């Protein structure tokens, strides 16, 4: 099996959407715990770049969110103590902890998602939706660095001509406006050449297809199947109320039914899928190495 991040971008996107979607609509501490363990350990395993500082930032954010809720929300029956005539309730504290935890977990997940999904992978996902959209995005992405470079060239040229002044802010704004207006003219001129180049290669004559370097392999299908099955089980569990968790007025949760058990297991599997794949791949390399 390949490591998680080398899987097909569509599968990766579906995976993250499922994990995040279920987590955000559940408000269930068990699901949160599963998701957090999955997301946090995956971040630890995958990216060495995540520094202690950013972990501390997430921790700080979590504490802040957990504290804010009980300060403003006074619902709940179990009063822990009173500050300035406002009761601080156990239920509100738990709610704060859970919602703060969800937010931080989602941030961890997004972080992994944005690191894994490089620009061309995102483009591929959009391209699979519509080849036209993919082309537009790709052209846009081409223009951004082109324009930036161009603006720099123009500004430097004008400066050496003594026409671009930075002595005071008014001059600078004036000079920047000039550069901007030249940039627009240039972009329009440039557009004609680009349009010619597109027409010369038969653009608009036939229905376009979309070429990509990504393949949809058997392992991708397997992962997609696993993701969808697990998500479906969890969602069914949620729909039948097996995962219900009530915060106010008092904390209440139903007894663990077989359906609930299945749903929790399914979400747990979903949460650890990336770590399992990652570890398996690493072990495989170790094994191969020892053979070589």
């Amino acid at each position, binding site marked *: 099996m390949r490591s998680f991040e080398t899987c097909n971008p569509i599968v990766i996107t579906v995976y993250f959407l499922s994990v995040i979607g279920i987590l955000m609509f559940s408000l269930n501490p068990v699901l949160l715990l599963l998701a957090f363990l999955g997301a946090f350990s995956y971040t630890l395993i995958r990216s060495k770049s995540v520094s202690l500082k950013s972990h501390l930032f997430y921790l700080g954010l979590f504490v802040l969110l957990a504290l804010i809720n009980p300060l403003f929300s006074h619902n709940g029956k179990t009063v822990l103590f009173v500050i300035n005539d406002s009761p601080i309730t156990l239920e509100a504290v738990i709610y704060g902890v859970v919602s703060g935890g969800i937010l931080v977990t989602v941030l961890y997940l997004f972080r992994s998602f944005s690191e894994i999904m490089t*620009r*061309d992978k995102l483009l591929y996902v959009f391209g699979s939706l519509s*080849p036209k959209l993919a*082309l537009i995005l*790709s*052209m846009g*992405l*081409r223009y951004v*660095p*082109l324009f930036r*470079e*161009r603006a720099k*060239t*123009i500004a*430097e*040229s*004008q*400066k*050496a*001509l*003594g*026409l671009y*002044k930075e*002595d005071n802010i008014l001059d600078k704004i004036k000079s920047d406006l*000039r550069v901007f*207006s*030249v940039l627009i*003219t*240039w972009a329009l*001129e*440039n557009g004609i*050449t*680009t349009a*010619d*180049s*597109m*027409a*010369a*290669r*038969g*653009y*608009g*004559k*036939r*229905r*376009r*297809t*979309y*070429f*990509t*370097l990504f393949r949809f392999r058997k392992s991708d299908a397997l992962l997609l199947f696993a993701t969808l099955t697990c998500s479906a089980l969890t969602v069914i569990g949620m729909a039948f109320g097996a995962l219900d968790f009530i915060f106010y007025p008092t904390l209440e949760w139903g007894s663990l039914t077989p359906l609930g058990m299945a749903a929790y297991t399914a979400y747990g599997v979903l949460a650890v899928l990336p770590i399992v794949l990652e570890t398996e791949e690493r072990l495989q390399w170790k094994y191969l190495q020892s053979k070589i």
Partner: protein
Amino acid sequence: MEILAVKDLSFTYPMCERPCVNHVRFTVDSGEFVVLCGATGSGKSTLLRRFKREIAPSGSEIGEITFFGKPIAEIAPEKIGFVAQRPDEQIVTDKVYSELAFGLENLGLSQSVIARRVAEMASYFGIEDWFERDVSTLSGGQKQLLSLASVMVMNPEMILLDEPTSQLDPIAASDFLATLKKLNRDFSLTVMIVEHRLEEVIPMCDKLLVIQDGVLTHNGSPREVIADLKAEDSLLESMPTAARVYHALSADGACPLTVREGRRFVESRYQNRIQSIVEAAYTHSQRQALAFRDVFFRYERALPDVLKGLSFTVYENEIFCILGGNGSGKTTALSCAAGVRKIYSGQIRVFDKKLKDYTGGELYQNCLTLLPQDIQSVFLCNTVREELEDAKADISMLPFDLSHLLDKHPYDLSGGEGQLVALAKVLATKPRLLLMDEPTKGLDGEKKRILIGVLQKLKTNGVTVLIVTHDVEFAAMCADRCALFFRGNIVSVGTPREFFSENSFYTTAASRMIKGYYANAVTVEDIAELCRANGRKGNGDA
């Protein structure tokens, strides 16, 4: 087999009275390499675009163009490929591989077919190493090669190129042309190319077409056509060195095209008793215009030095050319001198005053100005007239005439015209030191000569000129002193004759052609002068 037939073709732009292409007729055989040349505005690009219907400008067309016997309007776009001049603007997408696939996607081909063709092309062109790179990180030469590859991937029968190398440095240009020749030779691809840099492309071609004022004046093998050109033809100035020596000596017989043929031509016909041209010792003024002392520069702290202890002096009232390869730091040195970039160690003095001590706009008024490589970045307005008014330029004071260009849009100017208008604009600040970055990019031989004339006039008016260029021929003709830039430093300085006759590889075609036979000839004129002075060999020697 005949691939393209043009029968009595005339084309007139809307709102124009005179036809731009006038009763042109010729045919191209399959697998031929055809060069189309002519002066700027002669209609060569217009003619070329008539063969690519998707991008042909509208206007009234009379005559007939057939492609494999069928009218050209019925030909599918993928049969004829087109590569334009500016590498940046004809690339459509952001990644190398997606650009390669672009044309095939337009044809609606399936993923697996595209994958195979793209892979084939990438291997053939040697672009596997940068296959997944962003287009914006490529060099100009790579971009142009990518443009060619992304046309070739569609398997065209014929490929049209409109001055494809004009924006490239000489090495990238040679690579590009070599690739083109390889395609022509290996796949019998029919090539039609509009070019002004003819030194290298003419020896490769089978057929040379010359257009003058919309009329096809010559059509034949390059040897015949060049021998047939008149001595006063301005087109001759863009021709290969060997051919120009042949013309300068009004020789007869087969016209030499390459350096090797040129050498044989001179050796077999002319004696070499007199080896060198006597020249007066060069003396420069004692006053310094620009001095670099141990200058160090890098773009970012973490990056390596670009200028490594650079020291040189340009004296007042001389034309100083800095030559050197790509990425050697020439352009960076120039922008440091112009105060656009700040050096971190060493000293730059402009007219014996530290660069740092110039405050406000002082440096750019009556002192120094930089004409950048990319001329379009100089222009801000909609017409040349506004452009010149904006810069407060006085046209009557210029050493050249611009009056016929005043109502044109700056972007519509040809390379040579653009260069002169930009020059007019920078001269408005009355600089005493003019810095120029690659002024001959995109200019043909005639335009180069005009530019040299302008620079000589400026020099007479007391202006010092510092030029950074790849163009060794240009430097040999116009410089008072030349310097070779290598890895952030200047390694040798001398007058063009010393400089180029001492170099063996980094030198002019004329010098390469005659090295060892004559001692210090570096231009076509030098060779011609020595040949005349030595006289013909006797019949017995020939």
